[in-house]
């Protein structure tokens, strides 16, 4: 056996454990869910579960609600995180020091506790409502058991990590790039849109992918803070599976959620490949 063949076999053996783990915990469940989702009430295979998903009024509103919450959440997460990261990158002083100390705190608070805290704070008779009442403001908007509550929770859970990601990307943009842009006459807005944003948009895409997948598949916050109807797909899936015992429909919901995440993943991978192509 030649040395090259031996090295090839060794390489495969080294890759095999991680491939097997990936196969067992990712590929296999997806394949089984897909098979399950195609199973109809009489035990045969067809697209009836998917047809139900898109024709049933409640299911359709759940999908639209999920997409609305996800898109609004992701856009807000990216906007707030990017603003925080840019502020921390290009400023110094006490405010920046405080932001640096505080912005990671949500990552260390368990989801259920944070959600409970939000209910206490933003509920109809929560602290915020009571404080405002003291100032004569008697009407308090419905935040908990509404889309707004889920979005606020998503911001709480996702901003720290996304800010950390973007902060690291922004710190990789050298001051010299900005100085040389200023040197040729670029103003603040041009520097942002022509240099800072293009040099960090890939990380922005990574942040968007992580936030999208985290939000679309979230359960705790939508379950505790969301309305009864429509529901986020995670909560709906639990209900279809646990309460209505419709295993096949739950599998179709799960596979559809996976497809949505795959679309996001596709754009992310495509950009990465494009980048590799340019470097090569």
């Amino acid at each position, binding site marked *: 056996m030649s040395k090259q063949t031996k090295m090839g076999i060794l390489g495969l053996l080294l890759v095999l454990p991680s491939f097997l783990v990936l196969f067992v915990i990712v590929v296999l469940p997806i394949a089984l869910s897909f098979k399950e989702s195609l199973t109809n009430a009489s035990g045969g295979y067809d697209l009836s579960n998917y047809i139900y998903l898109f024709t049933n009024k409640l299911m359709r509103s759940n999908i639209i609600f999920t997409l609305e919450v996800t898109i609004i959440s992701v856009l807000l997460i990216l906007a707030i995180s990017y603003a925080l990261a840019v502020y921390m990158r290009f400023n110094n002083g006490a405010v920046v020091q405080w932001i640096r100390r505080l912005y990671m705190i949500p990552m260390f608070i368990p989801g259920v506790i944070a959600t409970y805290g939000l209910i206490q704070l933003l509920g109809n008779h929560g602290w915020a409502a009571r404080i405002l009442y003291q100032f004569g403001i008697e009407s308090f908007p419905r935040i908990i058991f509404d889309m707004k509550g889920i979005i606020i929770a998503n911001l709480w859970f996702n901003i720290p990590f996304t800010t950390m990601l973007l902060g690291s990307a922004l710190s990789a943009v*050298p001051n*010299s*790039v900005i*100085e*040389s*842009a*200023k*040197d*040729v*006459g*670029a*103003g603040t807005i*041009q520097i942002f849109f*022509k*240099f800072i944003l*293009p*040099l960090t948009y890939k990380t922005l895409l990574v942040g968007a992918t992580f936030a999208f997948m985290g939000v679309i598949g979230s359960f705790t916050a939508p379950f505790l803070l969301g309305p009864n109807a429509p529901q986020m797909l995670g909560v709906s899936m639990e209900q279809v599976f646990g309460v209505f015992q419709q295993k096949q429909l739950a599998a179709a919901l799960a596979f559809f959620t996976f497809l949505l995440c795959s679309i996001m993943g596709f754009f992310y991978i495509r950009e990465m490949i494009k980048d590799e192509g*340019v*470097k090569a």
Partner: protein
Amino acid sequence: MDIQLSIQKLTKRYKTGDGVSDISLDVQKGELITLLGPSGCGKTTVLRSIGGFLEPDSGDILIENKSVLKAPPEKRPTAMVFQSYNLWPHMTVFDNLAFGLKIRKMKKSEIDQAISEVLKLIRLSGSEQKFPGQLSGGQQQRVAVARALLLKPAVLLLDEPFSALDAKLRHEMREELREIQSNTGLTMVFVTHDQEEALSISDRIVVMNKGHIEQVASPQEIYDEPKTLFAAQFIGKMNFLKGVVTNGRVMIAQLAFPNSKNLSGNVTLAIRPEDVQLFDGEEAGLPGTIKHIMVLGHYAEVSIDLQGHGIIRSFRPRDQVNDLRTGQHVKVNFAKTLVFPTV
């Protein structure tokens, strides 16, 4: 001649204590002036203050007789070539070059023509669509120079632009820069810590040390007549011997040397290695013993122990060291000496 750049009593102090104090300098139109000094001497501080990247504590900077002190970098009539090239990695060579021109609202056809001409000048025609990562270090630096040239600045600032290049490329780039300067007639302020670089490209050199100017003169003058002990030490190779002024002459052992500055007390005598003469006759000279002979291509460096007066080096043509050997007793005298107060 017109003064293109005037630095007046510029002072900038950092918390660490470094910085520059009371720097004044006039640069003529079309001149290539080099700020030369060791790390931390303040040369980059002066350059960055001219470019607007640093705000001085006091003093003024005038370009074409107008103060630019209040103008931000983007509004100053300067362009800078940075040490690390600073090409924008996400833009092609064309976009890197065109960016500044687009900001100046130049027509597309004019931009195309200007870029085509400048790429020809830096011998990189055909590289318009390449990304900086696809160019070598020397090519990237040429593009960085071209980007600055395209803006037609009143003063071009160059911050150690060749320090990241290898020795051969550095040498080539110096020649190219000098050629570009003579073709364009641009006023250039060049920062380097490399004395050879400064001597080879400058019209005048500003020797800086510890935040102040030691000397401003032509390369030849700085080499032949350094004003201060630091300038003598920093530019070229130099031997130093301790002497005492007696009866108006500098004495080392029994030998007398000229006291051109009329100093008194303890002094330091500076002698270029090429001015150190070796002989073995009866003439007056400092006695010494040859410690090493190093042949360095077309010349040789001979180290001589002056018996209690230190070791000095002499540069000799290679054919003149054939008769010399290590341990040989010789006499030493100097064709030219410079005298400085001992610090």
